[in-house]
């Protein structure tokens, strides 16, 4: 706080680069744990149970309501142009391509990412991580890896549930409540949605977001200051960093997948 000096800038830059390097090393360390985690799948299974099953309800209900809203708003715009039959296509394409993966990732960061960060941060504050190291148990392998792979497996499944529920929600509002023809609703979807180009790319997106959100949550927990304030600010950072990373990555992935 002694004011502006070249030394401060140098220190800040050096610290930033060191942080990035640290994060990258942890990421590649986690990638190499795949065979080990596969061998002890019971650990991963318990984490899938914790991350997946408990997130299922919030994801399904959110998807349903997003579908409802899309049905109403989409119909309002489309009926001006006399093409309310395209409602199904509008709902399905926007869910499968964008909203399914993105909103699921944001909800997943809020619902599961924060709990991962808080759990690992508190383990660190309670010196459980240090104890493991003392007993020659690798905390990355025992604590971080199962959570990482569980998040990567869970995310695409949740995104698919979100998109499917959203399409059903759009169908409920569009067909059952407003009265769009059910046949043309589905046939528009089937004519316009491609299995690989749309559904496949949506799944690829959600896998990438699974890596991103879970890794950010674990990194923030693992690097948290072992104090109550440290864990609190690490949890906040998880949501902020994960959400921004998901939105930025979504733009890059969309630009790569859907232009041409």
């Amino acid at each position, binding site marked *: 706080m002694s004011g502006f000096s070249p030394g401060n800038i140098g220190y800040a830059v050096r610290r930033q680069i060191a942080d990035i390097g640290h994060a990258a090393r942890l990421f590649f360390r986690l990638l190499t744990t795949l065979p080990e985690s596969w061998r002890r799948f019971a650990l991963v299974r318990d984490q899938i*149970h914790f991350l997946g*099953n408990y997130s*299922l309800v919030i994801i399904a209900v959110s998807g349903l309501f997003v579908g409802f809203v899309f049905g109403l708003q989409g119909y309002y715009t489309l009926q001006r142009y006399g*093409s309310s039959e395209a409602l199904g296509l509008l709902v399905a394409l926007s869910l499968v391509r964008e909203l399914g993966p993105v909103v699921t990732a944001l909800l997943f960061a809020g619902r599961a990412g924060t709990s991962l960060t808080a759990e690992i941060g508190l383990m660190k504050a309670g010196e459980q991580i240090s104890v493991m190291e003392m007993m020659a148990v690798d905390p990355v392998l025992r604590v971080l890896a199962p959570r990482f792979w569980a998040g990567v497996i869970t995310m*695409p*499944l949740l995104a698919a549930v979100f998109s499917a529920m959203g399409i059903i929600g759009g169908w409920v509002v569009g067909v059952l409540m407003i009265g769009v023809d059910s046949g043309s609703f589905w046939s528009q*979807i*089937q004519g316009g949605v491609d299995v690989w180009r749309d559904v496949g790319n949506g799944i690829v997106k959600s896998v990438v977001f699974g890596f991103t959100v879970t890794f950010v949550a674990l990194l923030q927990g693992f690097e948290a200051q072992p104090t109550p304030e440290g864990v609190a600010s690490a949890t906040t950072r998880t949501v902020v960093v994960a959400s921004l990373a998901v939105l930025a990555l979504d733009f890059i992935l969309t630009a790569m997948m859907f232009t041409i």
Partner: protein
Amino acid sequence: MQRSKNDVWVGLFVLIGAVAILFLALQSANLLSLNFQKTYAVTAKFDNVGGLKPKAAVRSAGVVVGRVEKIVFDDKSFQARVVLAMESRYTFPKDSSLKILTSGLLGEQYLGIEAGASEEVLAAGDTISSTQSAVVLESLISQFLYSKAADGAGPKAAD
């Protein structure tokens, strides 16, 4: 590995996710319609294909009887060469004609095939010669404007 109560719930969760992916693939994207029926290739040349895209349907009397395989530009005749994959179970006379049609006002474009009167049937590698190009809005409007101008000019010239 010992079994635990979580196995059931995790299995259920994975099943729900798999069902959702299957729903997206089958109900939305209609994976089943990518049928693996035998097809025969027929080519046709169009002056203008408009917004026709590969995978667009070929319909006869509204029923899908084939798909557009690919669309390429032929720099010899300066026309678009469209390759169609017609389903083998349907045969059409050799002198059938093709039209580019639009489903609805803003819908996607598809090919309509109208049966001719010939005794011979289309076989793989045949070319359909009688085709009707897509309607291009700009040329329609310019035609309309020219005829309007001609109408306007006519009476004045007569005066």
